[in-house]
């Protein structure tokens, strides 16, 4: 009896010691050399790599790694990435940001993946004076957190109006119905933009319906929408719920076009909903079929490397690292403040997403592409 306690106790103490040791393992690595030649710098990446949203984090880190190899090969700047997982939780994102920020040779942060995480990490980075750039944070108000906070992901406030405007012009819509998920930051923020934009354009909003994450039956909401006979349905949903909504709508005989936000924009929609997905209109920074050698080159490289087609998260991450590299090159030194100033100056940088500039807040200025699902594929919507 006593022996077994002894063993258990020993085990616990050993485990604790190992853990404490592991907690403070790093920081012995070499510091960046500053002797002439190209600027070499370390950039911390906070990504969502374990948990339900790990697919986003994986695409993002793949995008970074692909860009990293190219940039280092080119040799204008030497970048080293230190990638850490946040598990999609705010507290872990904050802890790991502290870890990265407290190491003096890290000059900038990329990520975190979710807007909720950015709301926590952004202010801390701003206070510590380290530039931070979100590659997938699309909620309103992110770059306004502080002058060290940037993003290169198109916010809903840019994407949705573009899609809505084209759709309204094409179909001559006057009455719309809105459907949105109200328990998610992403879809909620998309809805706010939709409503504001619809009011702005003088459209009549017939009804506003809500649903929750993981819901499987949307018949109640769709029946109501059908009875009101709108010209267009605006749906702020993530693709997994959105695809099911479209499927049920088509089965019910609603043949109207849907306008969605950024989260609705995924090839998965076609896979899940099949023919029912025809007529979904979204605006996106990323269009993989674009007739641009740069884009095609990226798609090909990504496919050979990772075995599947890149999505917009990979593309945004890829461009983000190029923006950082450009900033470092212009700054000339691996210094946090110099890098911030250089980033703010970036104008019309050619990337795979298009011409990219920051506005005075550190938000994106860019023309999104509007796409529609037709004949089982995303196509440019004219």
């Amino acid at each position, binding site marked *: 009896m006593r022996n077994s306690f002894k063993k*258990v106790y020993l085990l616990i103490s050993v485990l*604790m010691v190992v853990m404490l040791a592991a907690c403070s393992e790093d920081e012995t690595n070499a510091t960046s050399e500053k002797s002439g030649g190209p600027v070499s710098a370390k950039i911390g990446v906070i990504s969502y790599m374990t948990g339900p949203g790990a697919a986003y984090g994986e695409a993002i880190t793949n995008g970074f790694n692909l860009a990293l190899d190219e940039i280092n090969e080119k040799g204008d700047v030497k970048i080293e990435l230190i990638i850490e997982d946040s598990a999609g939780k*705010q507290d872990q994102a904050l802890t790991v940001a502290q870890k990265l920020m*407290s190491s003096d040779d890290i000059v900038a942060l990329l990520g975190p993946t979710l807007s*909720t995480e950015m*709301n926590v990490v952004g202010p801390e980075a701003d206070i510590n004076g380290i530039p931070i750039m979100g590659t997938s944070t699309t909620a309103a108000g992110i770059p306004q957190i502080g002058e060290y906070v940037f993003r290169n992901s198109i916010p809903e406030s840019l994407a949705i109006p573009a899609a809505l405007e084209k759709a309204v012009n094409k179909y001559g819509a006057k009455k719309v119905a809105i459907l949105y998920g109200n328990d*998610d930051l992403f879809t909620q923020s998309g809805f706010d933009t939709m409503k504001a934009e619809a009011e702005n354009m003088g459209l009549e909003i017939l009804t506003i319906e809500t649903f929750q994450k993981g819901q499987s039956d949307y018949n109640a909401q769709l029946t109501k929408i059908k009875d009101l006979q709108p010209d267009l349905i605006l749906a702020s949903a993530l693709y997994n719920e959105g695809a099911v909504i479209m499927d049920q709508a088509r089965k019910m005989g609603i043949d109207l076009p849907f306008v969605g936000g950024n989260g609705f924009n995924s090839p998965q929609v076609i896979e899940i909903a099949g023919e029912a997905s025809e007529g979904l209109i979204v605006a996106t920074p990323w269009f993989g079929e674009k007739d641009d050698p740069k884009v095609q080159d990226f798609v090909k490289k990504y496919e050979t490397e990772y075995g599947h087609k890149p999505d917009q998260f990979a593309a945004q991450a890829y461009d983000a690292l190029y923006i950082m590299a450009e900033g470092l090159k212009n700054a000339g030194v691996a210094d946090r403040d110099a890098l911030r100033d250089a980033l703010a100056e970036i104008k019309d940088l050619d990337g795979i997403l298009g011409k990219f500039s920051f506005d005075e807040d550190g938000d994106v200025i860019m023309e999104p592409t509007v796409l529609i699902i037709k004949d089982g594929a995303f196509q440019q919507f004219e």
Partner: protein
Amino acid sequence: MLGDIINPYHLQIISFILINIILGISIYITLSSGQLSLGNAGFMGIGAYTSALLTINFDLPIFLGIILGAVVAGVFGILIGIPALRLSGVYLAIATLGFGEVIRVIFVNWESITQGSIGLSGIPHLGRELFKTFKLTGFDPDMLGLKNNQFIYLLVVLILLLVNILLVWFFIRQNKSRVGRAFAAIKMDEKAAESMGINITYYKVLSFTQGAILAGFAGALYAHVMAYISPADFAYHRAIDILIFSIFGGSELIWGAIFGATFMTILPEALRFISDYRYMIYGVILIAMMAFRPQGIIDVSLLKWFKKKLKLKRGGSLGIGTKKYN
């Protein structure tokens, strides 16, 4: 000097550990009277939102906000506790879990005040606000050889540590008092306790409310340490996490909750070096734990054995009799 030792990363982890310890104690207290409550995430949310909204909208000092957050959570604890404690065991667990979800859904839907799932940002930060007051008195962290953010997080950790010591001290005292004995008696056998003249409704509501107050208190601290909260923070995952702190560490003793919260907070950070696999290890440890030591790591006999060991060692080396240490 001091500036070289103190790393904001470690301070951040420690401050989360300290908050989680309060949460661990909150569920330990309800468990100590034999109630399994899963509503603590809801109470935590009430505390967090109360304090955050009061400090944002009415410029209340943070300390007052945190105390009010705990009080409001406590009021809800009494209101929920009186009807809910007619239930017991699994039924109580499900009812309280339901309560937690109701609270979360209210935060999501009460958009005019809580801003729905967008969450509340711009909550005054405990450390940063204190830092401002220190600045006004002419104090500069440079005098201690510290950077601003080191100083801010050091302040947070020190305050949390103080709060933790007071709480642990209070609950250890309570356990040895009439109230603690009553809790233990109810846990062992409700009927027997009642026949001994213990007012079980009173004590059950008391322990439930104490748990609610503590959870609300921890929630309010959480809000002012994160400076941003959203309803998703207080979903049932959180309730389960809190339960694990106490069950893993051992639910018989307060030390179990403290150990569980510490271990479970450090674990994901310490396993960072194996990146993708860390949550697998986390799961394996939980399963192994439940299989080999279902009563939790720390239980009464382990503590006794440990005390005896300590006694023997000291008694042996100093040549002092063992009686003194009893």
